């Protein structure tokens, strides 16, 4: 038995592009590598502009602030505050992501100063009327999917590793996602989302990557296009800050109320 365990350990620790790996092992290895290269940002803060476009080309804009605390034992914690439209200004959400169980989520309603624990079950629903579902924006923990390596590909001149991932949670709105990882630095370049009927639903493109602290790649723009409705949402990220010194104390229900002002 000990020998087998040793062999497994050795097998797992070989670099992922090795012979004899199943596509599943290789897919998981790529996802783990992508997670590993982004480790150590500790915390981040960013301002977001969300531009919603309907099929007639009409646009609508939302402004948000996001704070994230990186955790290793458990999933990340995040705090999102809406600054516009003005009628929902101060609405905020606090999320404790978990790797294998349901996330904990609280909503703050500034008009009546109420903090409400909400169900995180509805992950497939649209976020703020956008083409992003809650699950698209929540912390992408490795454990939330199973993986399968498909092929190497050339995506607009970028060498990419194409991996299919399958959500573990049956409440996900997707049967599968096809992810293009940049072969050099493991950042995600593109994702195709397939709905519950396995039809192509959405495509997410990551544009304008910039590197922070000499390590962490962040897209300055993400564009989600819904192929079934013709609607589109652009997410523009501004003023990224890392290792901002925030801690657990900045992710409490008191912080949630303060964030809503």
């Amino acid at each position: 038995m000990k020998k087998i365990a040793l062999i497994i350990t050795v097998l797992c620790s070989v670099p992922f592009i090795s012979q004899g790996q199943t596509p599943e092992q290789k897919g998981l290895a790529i996802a783990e590598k992508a997670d590993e290269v982004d480790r150590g940002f500790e915390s981040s803060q960013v301002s977001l502009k969300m531009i919603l476009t309907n099929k007639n080309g009409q646009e609508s804009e939302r402004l948000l602030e996001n704070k994230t605390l990186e955790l290793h034992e458990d999933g990340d914690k995040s705090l999102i505050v809406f600054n516009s439209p003005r009628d929902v200004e101060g609405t905020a959400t606090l999320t404790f992501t978990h790797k294998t169980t349901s996330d904990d989520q609280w909503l703050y309603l500034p008009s009546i100063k109420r903090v409400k624990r909400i169900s995180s079950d509805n992950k497939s629903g649209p976020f703020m009327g956008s083409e992003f579902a809650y699950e698209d924006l929540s912390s992408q923990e490795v454990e939330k999917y199973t993986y399968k390596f498909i092929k190497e590909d050339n995506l607009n001149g970028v060498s990419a590793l194409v991996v299919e991932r399958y959500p573990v949670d049956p409440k996900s709105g997707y049967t599968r996602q096809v992810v293009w990882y940049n072969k050099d630095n493991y950042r995600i370049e593109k994702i195709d989302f397939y709905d519950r009927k396995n039809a192509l639903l959405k495509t997410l493109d990551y544009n304008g990557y910039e590197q922070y602290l000499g390590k962490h790649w962040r897209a300055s723009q993400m564009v989600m296009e819904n192929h079934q409705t013709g609607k589109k949402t652009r997410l523009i990220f501004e003023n990224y800050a890392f290792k901002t010194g925030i801690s657990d104390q900045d992710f409490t229900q008191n912080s949630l109320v303060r964030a809503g002002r």
Partner: protein
Amino acid sequence: MVFMNSNSLKLLCLISIWPAYAWAQEKPYQDFSADVELEERFFFNEGLYEGQKQNYLSIALRPEYFVEWNNGRSSFKMSLFGRYDQHDENRTHADIRELYWRMVRDNKELSVGLKEVFWGVTESAHIVNVINQTDIVESFDGEAKLGQPMVHYSVVKPYGTFDAFVMPYFRTPTFPGENGRLRTPFLIDADDIEFESDMEEFHPDLAFRWSHFFGVFDIGISHFYGTSRQPLIKEGEAFELEFALVNQTGLDLQATTGPVLWKLEAIYNSNGIKDYTALAAGFEYTFGNVSGKGLDIGLLGEYLYDSRDELAFNSLQNDVFTGVRLAFNDMSDSQLLAGAIFDLHEGSRLISVEGSRRFGETWTVELEGRFFKNVSDKEFVHFMRRDSFLRLVVSKYF
């Protein structure tokens, strides 16, 4: 247009003992915003009492100012409110909803000034929520609150959040005026209601709350000692009210299991007139993203109990609330909540519909309907049996 009444003046005197704050070196973050609303309330029937009208136009303004400095560790918030009502002189009113200074150090927080605090989990009644006085003339559902002067200290520990409140001044509520609807046949002037405490409005009220969450459970245990926000009805021949001194212990509990929220609120209130208990318990089940169209359908059910029976200043002694909430999750945040409260014993019904959506980026429209059906003469709402109404609100945000 005179917004200030004697209470607002007292309040202004009180806040003039405001702690002076110093600006820090770094550039503070500040935000000014405001909204203006135009409201029309249409009552389907003529009123039972003389002077009541069927159409009430009104306009309201809510300016807000927020500033924070010291990396967000210090902040100051002010939000004001004023309404002018065409007919109801008591509904023409102004209030300082919030005006406070807050300091945050690590896990501790201290606020001084007028604040609004919400406790509780249920939707159809908020029995645990006792800190703020209700702005009775402002909204039918009682969710509009008057700013409460307080010193509020809060600390977050691994075993829960502890909140302590010292409230040096009582906010007297305003009841509808002679030309107002949704009122009793006799006019209630809160300034005529006796206080149990000799100190009257200046009795220092105290409150404490511990809240925490464990896995799927969120729990809060609170205690309030001071002047009851709602006047209590004295037992006797005549209808007599008193702002009694009460000790109220409350529990609020929610279990969030998958798509269902299970909710419980319970209070025990001891006072010099008659001790009472009240309870609100129920659930909220949400079918999320129905057929992939983004629509959320929530079903709500709650049971409401109050041991005071006819001595309660509401009609929720033994009632059931059922409701449906639709959230379209579209660009304009369209929402609809329809519900009914049934009295299990008397058979009275109150049906409610509330809908809202945004137009463009800075306009919202809200429609509210309240319909009284089969109102029993044994219930408090019997006074308002002819007051079914529609309310349309158009708001502009700046």
